[in-house]
């Protein structure tokens, strides 16, 4: 068989692509449930964290016990209920453009919408070691208990510091955060009802 004939080349490429494609598709299908479960756990862990809940033992159990999903407009938000049955706070999804890709996560706000409870990312592709440091605990913890004043944006310098050498990523986070808060405030009455 002539290895360089057109027919052989076409048949070979076709067969090889089909075989490798099938292998990938089967593997992907086989692992999909496990991958989805891992992803769901990352989301749940982030929601619990921004609401300030430390899971005693099992993450899923803690999530089901404390968190009530609420749908507001087109958004899925999450409320956390205190011992008296009234909400203690809300987790709200955060999404926007970072330097290299989408930054996605959650913010937690107190029940009376006057301060942030926390900030967590579930997806970010910033430069590792530079902008990627937005994922480090010290950076995210700065946003705990930052007061929310209607009409005023959060800025760096007042108790919250940007990351040295990662101005673009730091500013991206701040922009997304301020946009998310502004969006959230328009739903304040709906949520607090």
């Amino acid at each position, binding site marked *: 068989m002539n*290895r360089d004939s057109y027919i052989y080349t076409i048949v070979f490429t076709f067969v*090889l692509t089909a075989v490798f494609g099938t*292998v*990938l598709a089967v593997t*992907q299908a086989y*692992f999909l449930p496990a991958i989805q479960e*891992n992803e769901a756990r990352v989301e749940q862990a982030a929601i619990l964290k921004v609401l300030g809940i430390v899971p005693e033992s099992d993450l899923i159990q803690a999530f089901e016990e404390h968190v009530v999903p609420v749908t507001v407009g087109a958004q899925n938000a999450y409320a956390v209920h205190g011992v008296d049955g009234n909400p203690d706070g809300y987790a709200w999804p955060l999404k926007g453009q970072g330097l*290299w890709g989408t930054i996605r996560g959650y913010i937690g706000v107190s029940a009376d919408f006057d301060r942030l409870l926390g900030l967590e990312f579930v997806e970010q*592709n910033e430069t*590792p070691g530079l902008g990627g440091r937005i994922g480090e605990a010290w950076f995210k913890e700065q946003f705990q208990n930052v007061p929310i004043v209607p009409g005023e944006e959060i800025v760096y310098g007042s108790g919250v510091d940007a990351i040295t050498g990662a101005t673009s990523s730091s500013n991206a986070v701040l922009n997304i955060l301020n946009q998310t808060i502004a969006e959230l405030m328009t739903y304040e009455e709906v949520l607090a009802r």
Partner: protein
Amino acid sequence: MKKGAIKTLLVRNVWHENQVLRQILGICSLLAVTNLVSNSLVMGAGLIFSVALSSFTISLLREFIPHRVRMIVQTLIIATWVILFDVILKATMPDISRALGPYVGLIITNCIIMGRAEAFAQMNPPVESFFDGVFAGLGYTIVLVIIAFVRELMGFGTILGYNVNFLELETWTIMVMPPAAFFLVGVMIWIVNNIATRKQAVGGGKNG
């Protein structure tokens, strides 16, 4: 496989023909990941896995691959292994997968994998090709870790995330930025070339 062949492959790939220092391949990913030792280790592991299995597969198919389309076929094989690696990692080790995140794409485009496929796997038996891949990846990983060690130490004052900056010296932001890798890899190439030339002069050039 001939006796001593593995050792020959090891020495050649880690020293005489080191992918980074002698062939100047894989520089793009080197600039990106060497600011932390942990990133470099994960990237190195991913590359060793991908290059070894890609070389093995390409070598198995070497009698059947048409010459005209061999590079696109190699890319297909490399991409398949890297995606498989990514999927399995996501399902079984989600934490490592999240740390690796953006690097998986960098592995597919790493010139070292295609370099080994073209230079070795397409004309050597599968087992040799597999070890050739492992050692080429190892040579790359060693260089990465050395550079990352210097960059993390001077840029963050840490090693593998542990603080070693006991004297509280000022850290160098430049070391965190990609240009620092250029300076360091340049210095390393200079040192290694010097040692190699000196060895050659002493040993009468028997290692060429």
